[in-house]
């Protein structure tokens, strides 16, 4: 099953890599959102470090939303999804493959976004880069897992681009709150152990929703 999932993820990533339109637009979009934030605050009134965790997470939320919207849109062209469903692979491996491809996509955008964020807002991320990457990974896994499931549903509805954020944001906000709080602890130079509760909640959210999406995904594609 893992082998099939990996094949599927590879196919998606290869399509992505050959055209590069989606990843480039997502990166440019991230840079633009970061710029908008720079003009949306008063640098004399609010210190960058107070606002930094929110900026980081709002930017990543938007970027992830863009990535998730295209995950199943891709399969609608030329009925590619029907072809995929006819292939002798289990529904669950299709989900896993999509999840892996989305995670790689979002991680790439975040990997480019994080240094730019540190640069633009003069945030010292280098001393805390290990735990920070850990928090980002935990939160990203949770909402990409739910988002992959939901984008499989919304792709075949009438207002896919609008409906996905409306459905997904309520599920993104709790992990987002915990991630912002944990990031704030870290950027303020306090020990990570203070954020232990938030990290445990994030981990529990990941475990539950990855498992749930894995089990529920077949119900969204079976004919």
């Amino acid at each position, binding site marked *: 099953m893992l082998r099939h999932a990996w094949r599927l993820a590879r196919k998606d990533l290869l399509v992505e890599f050959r055209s590069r339109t989606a990843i480039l637009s997502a990166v440019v979009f991230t840079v633009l959102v970061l710029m908008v934030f720079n003009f949306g605050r008063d640098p004399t009134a609010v210190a960058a470090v107070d606002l930094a965790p929110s900026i980081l997470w709002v930017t990543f939320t938007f970027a992830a939303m863009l990535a998730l919207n295209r995950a199943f849109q891709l399969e609608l062209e030329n009925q590619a999804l029907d072809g995929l469903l006819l292939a002798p692979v289990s529904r669950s491996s299709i989900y896993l493959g999509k999840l892996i491809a989305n995670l790689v996509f979002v991680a790439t955008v975040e990997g480019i976004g994080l240094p730019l964020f540190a640069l633009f807002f003069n945030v010292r991320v280098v001393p805390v880069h290990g735990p920070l990457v850990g928090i980002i990974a935990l939160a990203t896994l949770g909402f990409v897992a739910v988002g992959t499931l939901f984008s499989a*549903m919304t792709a075949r509805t009438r207002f896919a681009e609008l409906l996905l954020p*409306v459905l997904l944001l*309520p599920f993104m*906000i*709790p992990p987002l709150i*915990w991630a912002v709080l944990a990031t704030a602890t870290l950027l303020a130079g306090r020990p990570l152990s203070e954020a232990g509760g938030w990290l445990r*909640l994030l981990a529990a959210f990941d475990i539950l929703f990855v498992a*749930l*999406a894995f089990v529920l995904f077949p119900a*969204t594609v079976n004919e």
Partner: protein
Amino acid sequence: MRLLQTGRWITVIGLALLPAVYVRAISFTPVERMQGAAQKIFYLHVPAAIWTESAMVLVGVASIFFLFLKDPRLDRFAEASAEVGIVFGSIVLTTGPIWGKPIWGTWWTWDARLTLTLLLFLMYVGYLLLRGAVTDPGLRARYAAVLGICGMCLVPFVHLSVYMFRTLHPQPIVLKPSAPSLPGSMLATLAFSFVVFTVLFVGFVTQRYALSLLREQAAPHA
């Protein structure tokens, strides 16, 4: 149709009992020492809140069974329950600020309990939007069930967060492990109000269920 008639009668009974709740709350319960008359809204706010969350759990449970049994009745029930849950949720979200203004000094605060109630409310609005956006009935039922189950699983996280944040909102005083910490007449009024809200909930859901059944019979392929 009989089911619709039954639903209407149950709703009428509930609506007739509602003034009795107001009378009991206004005249037969003591005035709370710290909050004064503003505390009276408690008798509407709490039963509505209990039924909002119960409606969401009912949607989730009906969704789980739907995915196993594929029984369209369960799907109709989930839809009805979600709609009525949203109506009760609007009651919670309107009575809350009316109570909050004199006591906390603000209509709204980004407190954990308030934020997450709003979040759950919006999630169920999304649930109905998803139902509206899918035209094929079989697909709609399955998509809605998937979302309903995910929504139910989000509720425990919401509750955990509420206990972890320091919050302005009072902690539970009735549904808690130890004995309820309020006078008997207040508890009796609350219980009575809860019964009335239950009757209303059952009446609304029955009517809504009957209506979606009628709609399906009128347009079987729509």
